[in-house]
C-alpha cells in the first residue's frame, strides 16, 4: 500500500533534509521525499495531511534496553517492551543479554526474535553476551550469536571482567563488525556502592560509587580499541571524567562511541534527598551524579562528543523497588519518557537543534549497530517517528504501555511528545492526544 504524508516538517539529517516536505511510503519502504508531491503518486493509497507542527524523522532507535525475557517476565516481556517502545516513539530497540538464561547462544537470540516477530511492533535487535553466561571467563560463541541475529556484544550489568578478555573480545568481534558495548565500571572501586560518591551520599549515609570507576574502565577499553583497531561503545556514560577519556580517544582517531541516558543529563543526586528521601526510583547504575557531570553530559551532547541518547530502559517490579535503598535493584524505565525529556531539555532548552537530536536518536544508533534506519532516502525502510514537539505531556506512569512503573519522572510535565510511530510502513502507534490523523493498524 502507498501512503503519502503531506505538509509536515521533515528532518532527515543523513540526507541533509530539514523543511516542509511530503513523504511517500510504498509498502515497507520510503519511495520519495519531495516538495508538493502530486497526490496521484499515492493513487489507491492513503493521503494524510499533517499540520506543519508535526515533524517526520527517521525512526528513533533505543540501542540500550532490557526486555527481561526470558526469565524475568514479571518485570517486562518482549511484547510489553516493544509496546512501550512504540508508545514512546521508538521504531527499534537493541536489548541487552542479561536475561535468565543469558543471551549467550543462538537459542536465546532466536527466542527473543520470535517473540518480537509475534508482537510485530518495534524491531528488536538482540545484543549477545561477550562471555559465556556473562561470567567474564570465556568468550561466548560469537559467530553463532552473529548468525542468529545479534548486532553487538556486551556483558552489560557488569564490565568485561579483565583487560585481556576485553582485548580478545574486540579482536574477535571485529571479524564480524560487531561493536563491544561496555558497561564501564571498575568493580573494586564500585564495591557495595549504591549512589554517586560525593557530598550527597556522605550526608545520606549511602555507600558511594565514584565517577572514576566508570572512567577507568572506559580508559582501559579505549586504549585496547586503539591498539587492536576495535570498536568500543561506552554505554550509559555518566561521569565527566569518562567524557574526557572518550574525547581524548576520538581526538586520536580511536573508534570509540558513547551514549548518554536522559536521566544523566536531567537529574542529579540531589533527587536522592528530596522530594522523597531515599526514593528507590532514583537508584540506577551508573548513579545520578553531580551538577558538574550533568553539565558535562549536556556539553558533550552539544559539541558532538556524545554519539547517542539511549535510555537504559530497566524495568523492575514495584515490589522489588519497595524496599530499603541498599536492597533495591538498580534501574529505571526510559522508553516512554525519553522523547519528551529530550525535546524539552535539549531542543526547547536550546542545547541542540532538532536535526542533532535525530542524529543522536536515529542516525547514529543505526550506524553503530549497522542496522537499517536512520535515513529517509529512497529505498530506505519506512521506519518513521513523527514528533509533536510543542505538545505538552505530563508523565503518568500508571498509563505506561510497558509493564513496570519505576520512573522518577512521574508527574513531570515536558514539552514535546511522539505523535506516531511507523515501522516498515505500518502505523504501530498513534498518540490520540496529538490530534494526528493516523491510527494504529493491525497487521
Amino acid at each position, binding site marked *: 500500500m502507498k501512503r503519502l504524508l503531506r505538509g509536515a516538517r521533515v528532518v532527515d539529517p543523513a540526507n541533509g533534509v530539514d523543511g516542509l516536505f511530503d513523504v511517500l511510503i510504498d509498502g515497507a519502504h520510503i519511495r520519495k521525499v519531495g516538495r508538493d508531491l502530486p497526490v496521484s503518486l499515492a493513487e489507491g493509497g492513503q493521503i494524510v495531511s499533517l499540520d506543519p507542527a508535526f515533524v517526520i524523522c527517521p525512526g528513533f532507535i533505543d540501542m540500550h534496553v532490557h526486555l527481561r525475557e526470558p526469565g524475568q517476565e514479571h518485570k517486562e516481556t518482549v511484547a510489553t517492551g516493544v509496546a512501550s517502545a512504540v508508545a514512546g516513539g521508538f521504531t527499534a530497540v537493541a536489548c541487552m543479554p542479561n536475561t535468565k538464561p543469558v543471551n549467550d547462544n543462538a537459542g536465546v537470540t532466536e527466542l527473543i526474535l520470535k517473540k518480537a516477530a509475534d508482537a510485530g511492533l518495534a524491531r528488536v535487535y538482540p545484543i549477545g553476551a561477550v562471555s559465556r553466561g556473562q561470567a567474564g571467563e570465556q568468550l561466548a560463541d560469537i559467530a553463532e550469536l552473529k548468525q542468529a541475529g545479534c548486532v553487538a556484544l556486551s556483558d552489560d550489568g557488569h564490565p568485561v571482567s579483565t583487560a585481556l578478555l576485553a582485548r580478545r573480545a574486540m579482536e574477535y568481534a571485529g571479524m564480524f563488525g560487531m561493536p563491544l558495548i561496555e558497561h564501564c565500571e571498575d568493580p573494586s572501586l564500585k564495591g557495595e556502592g549504591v549512589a554517586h560518591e560525593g557530598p550527597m551520599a556522605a*550526608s545520606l549515609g549511602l555507600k558511594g560509587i*565514584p565517577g572514576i570507576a566508570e572512567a577507568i574502565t572506559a580508559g582501559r577499553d579505549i586504549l585496547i580499541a586503539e591498539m587492536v583497531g576495535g570498536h568500543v561503545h561506552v554505554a550509559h556514560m555518566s561521569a565527566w571524567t569518562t567524557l574526557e577519556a572518550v574525547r581524548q580517544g576520538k581526538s586520536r582517531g580511536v573508534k570509540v562511541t558513547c551514549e548518554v541516558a536522559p536521566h544523566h543529563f536531567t537529574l542529579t543526586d540531589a533527587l536522592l534527598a528530596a522530594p522523597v528521601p531515599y526514593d528507590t526510583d532514583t537508584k540506577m547504575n551508573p548513579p545520578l551524579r553531580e551538577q558538574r557531570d550533568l553539565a558535562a553530559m549536556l556539553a558533550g551532547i552539544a559539541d558532538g562528543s556524545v554519539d547517542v541518547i539511549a535510555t537504559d530502559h530497566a524495568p523492575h517490579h514495584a515490589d522489588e523497588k519497595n*524496599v*530499603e*535503598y*541498599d536492597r533495591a535493584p538498580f534501574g529505571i524505565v526510559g522508553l516512554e519518557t525519553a522523547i519528551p525529556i529530550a525535546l524539552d531539555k535539549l531542543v526547547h532548552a536550546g542545547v541542540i537543534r532538532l536535526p542533532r537530536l535525530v542524529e543522536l536518536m536515529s542516525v547514529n544508533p543505526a550506524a553503530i549497530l549497522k542496522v537499517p534506519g536512520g535515513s529517509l532516502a529512497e529505498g530506505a525502510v519506512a521506519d518513521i517517528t513523527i514528533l509533536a514537539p510543542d505538545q505538552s505531556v505530563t508523565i503518568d506512569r500508571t498509563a505506561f504501555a510497558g509493564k513496570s512503573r519505576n520512573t522518577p519522572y512521574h508527574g513531570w510535565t515536558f514539552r514535546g511528545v511522539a505523535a506516531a510511530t511507523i515501522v516498515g510502513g505500518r502505523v504501530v502507534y498513534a498518540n490520540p492526544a496529538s490530534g494526528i490523523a493516523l491510527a494504529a493498524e493491525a497487521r
Partner: protein
Amino acid sequence: MDAPTTDVVLPATSLRRKDLLGIAELTREEIVLVLDTTEAMKEISQRQIKKVPALRGRTVVNLFFEPSTRTRTSFEIAEKRLSADTLGVAVASSSVVKGETLVDTAKNIEAMGPSMIVLRHPASGAAHLLSRVCKSPIINAGDGLHEHPTQALLDAFTIRERKGRIAGLKVAIVGDLLHSRVLRSNVLLLTKLGAEVWVCGPPTLIPMGLEQMGVHTTSSVDAAVEGADVVMMLRIQLERMEGGFFPSLREYFRVFGMTSARLKRARPDVIVMHPGPINRGVEIASDVADGPFSVILDQVANGVAARMAVLYLLAGGGADNETVA
C-alpha cells in the same frame, strides 16, 4: 515523694511532627525543646521510684533488625519509666535471606495497633521508608550509616550539662567517619547549635564531600584535639581493617588512638565522650576511658532521659496529656 507525682514539670508541648527520623529534619528550637525535656526526664530517673504515667496505655514496639544491647535496653527502660507497654522484636536481617520485606513486617506490626515504632535497621533510609508506609510514629534508633538521632541528642545533653552551652565549643570527633551514623547526627546537631566541629580520621575513612556538612576535616589528631572542649571518639570496627581501610589495629592506635598525652592538647576541662561500645587500646586508651575527663557512663545514663523526652514529645507530650500524673 516516692509515689509517681506531678512534682516534675514536663513541658506542655510536643514535637509537632509524626516521626523522629533524623536530626536533619529538626529545627534548632525543636532540639532545644528535647534537651530541656531531657532535663525533666533526668529528674525522674533520679527518683527512687522512676516512673511516671505519661505513656500509660500506649504500646511501643522496639523493632530491631540489628543486634544492639545498649540502645535497645536504653529505649526499653525509657519506655517503662513512662509506663508504656513495650515489646521488643528482634529480626534477623540478612541481605541474602529471602523473606518478608521490611515494609510487610512493619505493616503487620502496625496492624496490631502499636502507638509507636522504634526502628533500628542496617540500611540507610529504612526509617524514612517506614515513615512513608506506616501511620504510627517512627523513632529512628539508627539507620545504616545515616543517622542515630537519639544518640546525638543524648550527647548534646551531656555536653550542655557539663559545659552549660554548646555554641562556640570546639568539638573534635575522631574515628571511623565513613561508617558512622553517630557522626552524621552529631555533626548535624552540633553545627545547628553553633559548635565548631572538627572531624578526624584516616583519609580512607573520611567520606568524600563531608566538609560540605560544615565541619573541619583533618587526619591530624593533634590539630583536631588542640584546644578542644569536647573530644568524641568513634568506635573502630575490626571488619574495617579487613576491608583495607587501615593496616592494623595496632597502627590505628599508634596514629589515632586517644591517649593521655594527646589529650593534653585539649582544654584542661575537656570532656571525653564515646557512644560505645568502646575498644580499649584501639581508639581509646583505658586510662582515658576510665579517667577524670571521661563522661562515657554519663552519656549512657543520659541516654535513658533523652529517649524518654523523645518518646514523650512525639507521643503528643503536653498536647493531649495535660498532666503527667
